């Protein structure tokens, strides 16, 4: 099987190495600290609308990191994220609504249940590779949504289920900003975990499986274990994202988790940069906000030419596609790569070899 991730020659990605450096020096650490402080103070100066958008970005970023662990780091393309988001969402919906469990318990449980389901659908990865595996995950997508829409007694069928926002004591996370904090904190934890995981033994094994699985085996890496493990870890985060999203929008229904969603997540990791945590976040922001940006442009244009609204709406789709293509052509390394270049530009490493 051809390796889908390796360009034929040249231009090598060193994201793993970059990861090592990420927290390697004190100055880097301080920079990240500043970033986190900015993130945490954002609701104080951003409008409610933007806080809402950023919440969506943060939730998507958690899912995108999950997917990137699977696709970017372990080389297994998944077109089933949508359904796994659904598993997370439905798990928490059922646990909190039907069984009255607290959000704080159901959230990790949603991750765990999704991880188990993801692991199950990861089993074919033993024998399947590349696009064949990708389509198998697409099958997972179709089958899971089918089950969800048919298991009326548990999932409420096509009508879906209604959830409420989480609470602590008397406080409900009803406002945009409170939910934003919740999401951002979980995102930060996700980032910390995955960055660390990926620079240690398990992460290296993932990369080895992606790059050359035969050699990886000889290094003592149990391919099956790590491939399924990648599915499990990845699905865990996707499940968490799904649960967060469900409580944010306060509804789950099978139509929310269609293949378009899966494809959007794939776009996030690709645009962001395969095998890059930072890239996943940037990609999530990009894919979440680009349509928003385009809508604003459409609105602006419509203000002058109201009769052309339809045309402009179609234009949105057109430009969205165009943006992705231009992006890939001019920056195949993804947003992460652009970021690295910018960083490189502003910085002289104290000790570069």
């Amino acid at each position, binding site marked *: 099987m051809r390796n889908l991730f390796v360009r034929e020659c040249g231009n090598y990605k060193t994201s793993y190495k970059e990861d090592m450096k990420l927290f390697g020096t004190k100055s880097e650490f301080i920079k990240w600290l500043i970033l986190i402080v900015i993130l945490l103070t954002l609701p104080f100066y951003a409008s409610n609308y933007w806080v809402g958008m950023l919440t969506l970005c943060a939730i998507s970023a958690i899912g995108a990191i999950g997917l990137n662990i699977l696709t970017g780091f372990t080389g297994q393309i998944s077109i089933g994220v949508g359904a796994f988001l659904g598993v997370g969402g439905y798990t928490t919906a059922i646990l909190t609504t039907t069984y009255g469990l607290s959000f704080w318990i159901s959230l990790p449980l949603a991750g765990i249940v999704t991880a188990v389901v993801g692991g199950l659908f990861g089993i074919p990865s033993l024998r399947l590779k590349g696009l064949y595996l990708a389509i198998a995950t697409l099958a997972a997508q179709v089958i899971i949504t089918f089950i969800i829409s048919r298991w009326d007694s548990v999932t409420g069928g096509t009508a879906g289920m209604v959830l409420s926002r989480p609470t602590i004591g008397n406080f409900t996370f009803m406002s945009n900003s409170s939910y934003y904090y919740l999401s951002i904190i979980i995102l930060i934890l996700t980032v910390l975990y995955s960055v660390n995981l990926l620079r*240690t033994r398990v992460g290296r094994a993932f990369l080895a499986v992606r790059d050359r699985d035969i050699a990886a085996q000889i290094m003592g890496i149990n391919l099956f274990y790590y491939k399924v493990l990648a599915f499990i870890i990845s699905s865990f985060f996707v499940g968490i994202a799904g649960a967060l999203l469900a409580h944010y929008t306060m509804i789950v229904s099978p139509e929310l988790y269609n293949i378009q969603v899966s494809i959007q997540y794939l776009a996030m990791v690709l645009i962001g940069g395969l095998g890059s945590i930072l890239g996943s976040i940037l990609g999530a922001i990009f894919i979440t906000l680009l349509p928003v940006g385009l809508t604003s442009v459409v609105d602006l244009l419509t203000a002058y030419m109201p009769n052309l609204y339809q045309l402009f709406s179609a234009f949105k789709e057109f430009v969205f596609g165009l943006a992705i293509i231009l992006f890939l052509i001019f920056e195949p390394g993804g947003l992460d790569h652009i970021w690295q270049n910018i960083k490189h530009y502003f910085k002289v490493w104290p000790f570069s070899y």
Partner: protein
Amino acid sequence: MGPILEIENVSLHFGGVKALDQVSFHINEGEIFSLIGPNGAGKTSMLNCISGLYRPTSGSIRYKGKDITNMKPYERTTLGIARAFQNIALFAHMSVLDNIKLGRHTLMKSGVFSGGIYVGKASKEEIEHREKVEEVIEFLELQDIRHKPVGTLPYGLQKRVEVGRALALNPELILLDEPMAGMNGAEKERMSQFILDMHEVMNTTVVLIEHDLGVVMSLSHHIAVLDFGKLIGFGTPTEVRENPDVIKAYIGEETVLEGGKA
């Protein structure tokens, strides 16, 4: 010292092709053992059987007295069998350092939880093993390229990194498939010295596939010769050099006269 590896009547068939045909020999602990033979004789296939990538059609392989014929490749690694490939199989996008670190996979422990938390166990382990990796780097003189992605290195250096990756495993048995291909005389000499050091300093058993008879003859304690999947010669360098079958199939009359230098 007794045999570390015993190959018994191993056959390997691919459809009609008999890549290996009833091959038996043994390798003693602590020796440098060479596997030679014409192209397509089945040398790489033999290594693949030993490291578990191919499962013999029949026959058995014992490692330290234990039957490993049906063991998974990654399980054999934990027994201390390491391998460097003929066609370079490095992780091209990773740095030399990470490639070699990967060699230590089985010796490390951090998992999904400790690795993700990093602080504490995992970080300690990373640092600890980094030191070992640095030893290997120093041993193979890869210091100045340790942060380069291996994909950009010239062929010869990549071969050396492969050896380094195998060595990082602290193997008891190391399988080297043409580690000197693509090297000139001086470089081969240098690689030969690494191999001798592995054997002497680290006390590793080395299985070597190599077409340069000069190297093979001067390094090996024992040699097995394959042709069309069959074992046609086995013994010390001197014995093999004089074996008429071997001369006919592999060495060639003149080469012998030239003193084993190709």
